[in-house]
């Protein structure tokens, strides 16, 4: 695994030097940390909108101990939790596409594959280089949000924000999403030669998450710890499939003879 570490270090170094990618990775998460805080700040003393409350009436029983105002606030903040789940999808796809297509553009894959590195070490190095920054950014932005929220909301609300569901989403589901995104990034990179095209195609993978978020916003469903636990299990299975498929594509001969 020493060589995977060497690959990771080099990828990290290149990432830090690429301002465009760096800003793409850092700015959206920063916005997602600040936006819910701004929303909390301006709505904390506002009277409850009766239309909102009516929409979420059916979930009151699932949120015991919360005042009607807190229920509305919680439902809104839950939307941002779904946003946090988009970061581990978007960031690794961006990094993986930049990393692999960058190698294709620079034609550096062949000399790299001529070294004694195992392709699994290369893939692990590149995966870590995409997953670690994505997780760091996701967790850091959540930490900023959580720290800010602690000043602007009630202790009951804070308990909800560090409930098993939120922790499961941030610390289990996010890494699983990252792995999924890298796998998809590898598959896209094997067929596409332009980083921007890969990013655009990669962006499609967030659509199911947006759709799920919309369902909750419209008051159709309320995601619970159980929902998230099931989702984590499904994701783990999907990840295994994606890792298998990605590693099949990421073979010396396939890369040199079949990748476009």
């Amino acid at each position, binding site marked *: 695994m020493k*060589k995977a570490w060497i690959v990771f270090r080099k990828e990290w*170094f290149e990432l830090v030097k690429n301002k465009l990618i760096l800003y793409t990775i850092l700015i959206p998460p920063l916005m997602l940390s600040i936006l819910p805080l701004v929303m909390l700040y301006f709505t904390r003393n506002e009277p409850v909108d009766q239309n909102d409350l009516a929409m979420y009436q059916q979930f009151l029983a699932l949120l015991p101990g919360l005042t009607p105002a807190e229920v509305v606030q919680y439902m809104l903040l839950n939307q941002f939790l779904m946003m946090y789940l988009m970061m581990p999808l978007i960031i690794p796809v961006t990094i993986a596409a930049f990393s692999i297509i960058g190698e294709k553009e620079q034609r*550096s894959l062949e*000399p790299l594959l001529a070294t*004694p590195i195992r392709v699994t070490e290369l893939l692990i190095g590149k995966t870590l280089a995409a997953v670690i920054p994505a997780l760091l950014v996701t967790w850091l932005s959540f930490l900023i949000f959580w720290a800010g929220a602690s000043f602007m909301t009630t202790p009951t609300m804070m308990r909800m924000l560090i409930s098993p569901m939120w922790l499961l989403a941030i610390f289990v589901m996010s890494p699983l999403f990252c792995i999924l995104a890298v796998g998809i990034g590898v598959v896209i990179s094997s067929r596409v030669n332009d980083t921007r095209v890969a990013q655009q195609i990669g962006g499609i993978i967030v659509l199911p998450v947006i759709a799920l978020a919309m369902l909750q916003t419209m008051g159709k469903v309320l995601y619970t710890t159980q929902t998230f636990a099931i989702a984590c299990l499904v994701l783990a299975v999907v990840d295994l499939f994606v890792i298998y498929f990605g590693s099949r594509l990421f073979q010396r001969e396939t890369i040199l003879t079949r990748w476009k």
Partner: protein
Amino acid sequence: MIQTRELTRKFNGLTAVDRLTVDIQEGEVFGFLGPNGAGKTTTVRMLACLIRPTSGTATVNGIQVGKDNRAIRSIVGFLTESPGLYEKLSAEANLLYFARLYDVENPEEQVRKYLEMLGLWERRAETVGGFSKGMKQKVAIARALVHEPKVLFLDEPTSALDPEAAKTVRNFIEELKAHKRTIILCTHNLDEAERLCDRIGVIRQKLIAVDTPDGLRRSLFGRQTVVQLENVTPALLETASSLDFVAHVQQENNKIIISLADPDKQNPIIVERLVSAGGKVQYVNEVRHSLEDVYLTLVREEGR
């Protein structure tokens, strides 16, 4: 050092390399010469364990391709057709990355050695994206050598370079040749092949011919001596053709071109007879066909 036996590679039914059998000795500079799509790159990719042969076998330093590919990769250096460098990294960072991937014991020292050797030490911290093509190719050569490989594969090392940069690269390969490293050079640059290679294998899917550049000339055109005289008379032509070791004689203006089996021994006799017959000899030279003649003849014959 390298042996291939009936080495074959097919892509979707198309044969890229067809039953290639060749032995390359340690310390030899061996050139694969052939047109685009002849299978040169596919051959070195198979020998560098980047792609698998469809059939046949190959060994590199006694290790069979396909048996212990990592061991082979650790003793070969591969210069690809394009430099393939990380443009946003410095020359030094590019080389250090590869030195570490090759498990070089003291990567910093080894990188310094090659950057100094290629005159790039002063510019080591600059990103290679700003380098000229020649400088990039130098960094790529250093990368292929940083782990001191026993075998070096050079795939079209000067194809994209201007004449000055190409000359620098060729001079460096000549230096490597002096260090007795086994080098396999893929090229369609005939001058380069002639200047650098001990032996040449002309390839067009199949190996058409293998020999030294002079050996290839001899086997195709035989050996010929041209004798320039002040004046060529029928009597002088008759004198030359009457010698029993002379295979063929032809006249071109004031020159007689004579086909011989062993010019080193037979030229003095010819000159002596022509002078005795009254001929005034001005010059005696060996007719030297260019490698281009050899190559084109071989490739055309194979294409028929």
